[in-house]
């Protein structure tokens, strides 16, 4: 890293980010006793696990309750049973197939909504701010309509095939992406545009180097909201109109009283949703590093 200067009467100053003592490197040349090193290691592990203690506790309780007979294991199977079911379905190739189908549907809809929402948002927010204001109530109304409640309509138009499910995802993703793009563009400080213009930048340059990077953090928020919400919508849609996918797995298991499989599907959905969200967060950190650093500071 570049050297950090702490300097001068002009008030150059850099706040040093507070590093948790347990994670900080030991200062060179400072001798430590064995006990202290052990304590540091312990604290480091403790720090890493901090977020997970709640989940670990829940898993242990969950395992104990049915095993000790406190609740009925047939309706509430312990994690070990669910895990065994999971291993079985993975080996048969069933679970990965369902995961893939659901994921593919989600990503396809997300990609299409991004491809429509971001350009449309830039056009409305950047070039036609009046139109954006005029359309705002209408767009808001449309955005409030739950995609799930439109599913019958989609089925009516497109049949119960892939297109209806695609529509659900597309609809759920489109509005958050569109709204956050519009507000992102309009939130870009006009002095940035003024400055770029003073250097003789043309419209394309201002878009690519000022408006787009300026709006990106906001766009990502919409992307993340849209993707996680759309995933849940899809699961619901798969429960009523599909023969594959995790939603179908839940529905099918419940109809057939396959309780461990039902739990397995539910847990997989939760994990997949988390992964989806997390992937987008990581992507966001990579692309809008400046902003994320600012916020976590």
């Amino acid at each position, binding site marked *: 890293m570049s050297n950090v200067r702490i300097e001068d009467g002009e*008030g150059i100053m850099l706040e040093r980010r507070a590093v948790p003592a347990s994670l900080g490197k030991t200062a060179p040349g400072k001798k430590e006793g064995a006990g202290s090193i052990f304590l540091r290691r312990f604290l480091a592990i403790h720090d890493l696990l901090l977020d997970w203690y709640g989940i670990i506790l829940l898993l242990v309780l969950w395992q104990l309750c049915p095993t000790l007979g406190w609740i009925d294991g047939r309706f509430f199977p312990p994690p070990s049973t669910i895990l065994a079911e999971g291993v079985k379905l993975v080996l048969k190739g069933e679970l990965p197939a369902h995961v893939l189908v659901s994921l593919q549907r989600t990503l396809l809809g997300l990609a299409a909504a991004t491809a429509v929402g971001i350009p449309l948002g830039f056009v409305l927010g950047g070039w036609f701010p009046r139109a954006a204001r005029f359309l705002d109530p209408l767009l808001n109304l449309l955005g409030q309509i739950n995609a799930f409640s439109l599913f019958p309509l989609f089925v009516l138009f497109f049949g119960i095939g892939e297109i209806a499910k695609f529509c659900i995802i597309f609809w759920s993703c489109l509005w958050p992406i569109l709204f956050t793009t519009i507000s992102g563009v309009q939130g870009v400080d006009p002095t940035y545009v003024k*400055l770029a213009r*003073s*250097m*003789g930048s043309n419209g394309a340059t201002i878009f690519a*180097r000022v408006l787009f990077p300026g709006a*990106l953090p906001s766009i990502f928020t919409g992307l993340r909201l849209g993707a996680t919400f759309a995933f849940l919508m899809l699961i619901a849609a798969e429960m009523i109109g599909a023969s594959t996918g995790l939603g179908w797995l839940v529905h099918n298991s419940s109809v057939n009283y396959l309780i461990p499989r039902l739990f397995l599907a539910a847990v997989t959905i939760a994990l997949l949703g988390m992964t989806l969200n997390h992937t987008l967060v990581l992507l966001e950190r990579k692309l809008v590093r400046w902003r994320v650093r600012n916020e976590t*500071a």
Partner: protein
Amino acid sequence: MATHGDGTHKEDLKIVLKDIGQVYHLKKSADGSREFQALKDINLQVRAGEFVALVGPSGCGKSTLLDILAGLTRPSSGAVYIDGKEITGPALDRGIVLQGYALFPWRTVRRNVEFGLEIKKVPKSERRGISDHFIRLVGLEGFEEHYPHELSGGMKQRVAIARALAYDPEVLLMDEPFAAVDAQTRETLQDELLRIWDETKKTIIFVTHSIDEAVFLADRVAIFSSNPGTFREIVEVDLPRPRHNSDIRSSAEFGWVRHRIWELLQSRPSQECREGGNIVVKDAISPSATI
């Protein structure tokens, strides 16, 4: 108009402002649109390498004039000539520095400084050397890879200056650049600006709220009156150079020039600042003059 460009030859003139006027059409009340004359009869001739300060109460049209100079706004009447040619829009021969820094928060210090070079299509290999040079010039070496939010106000303004200098404009337009930093930082930045001006030989138009700052920095100070915004007088500042904040402020000449400008600004107080357009400005400028 009463410019002091008496002895100067035509060839030395960098900037000529000729009869600049600016009218805004305000759509307001039921009686339809109203006109507001923001600038009127502005005439000024600036020699190459000269440092001219513009002072006046807020709302008198200083920023408007600077926007016209930058080519961002077309004047309603009159014209701006740079090197004898009328300007038609923004271009890389003029650089601007704004009060709010306007640093791109998603770019590091280096990439902010290189922004104009990218617009100018300078190849990447050359950009680095140039940005290195100007980052050093403003005393920020070591901070190349920092983001603006990691810098203090004074450092941000240095980056903004380096960014405006990097693509080598001949004219630097500065709109209250030091208004947002504390008094001590401000004096340091003033000293450094004079050093940089001396090293780079730019022509500088510097808008400020502070009489002290104007007198300290400039060769000439143009005093605005408002409603309509026009030059009341242009005062020659005959203080020796190089100037340093540490000694010059206590000198008798400094006090004298400062007082004269103060009197000019006071001479027809608040009544002329009455109800101008949508902003009503009454703040008289005090002689101690850090507003």
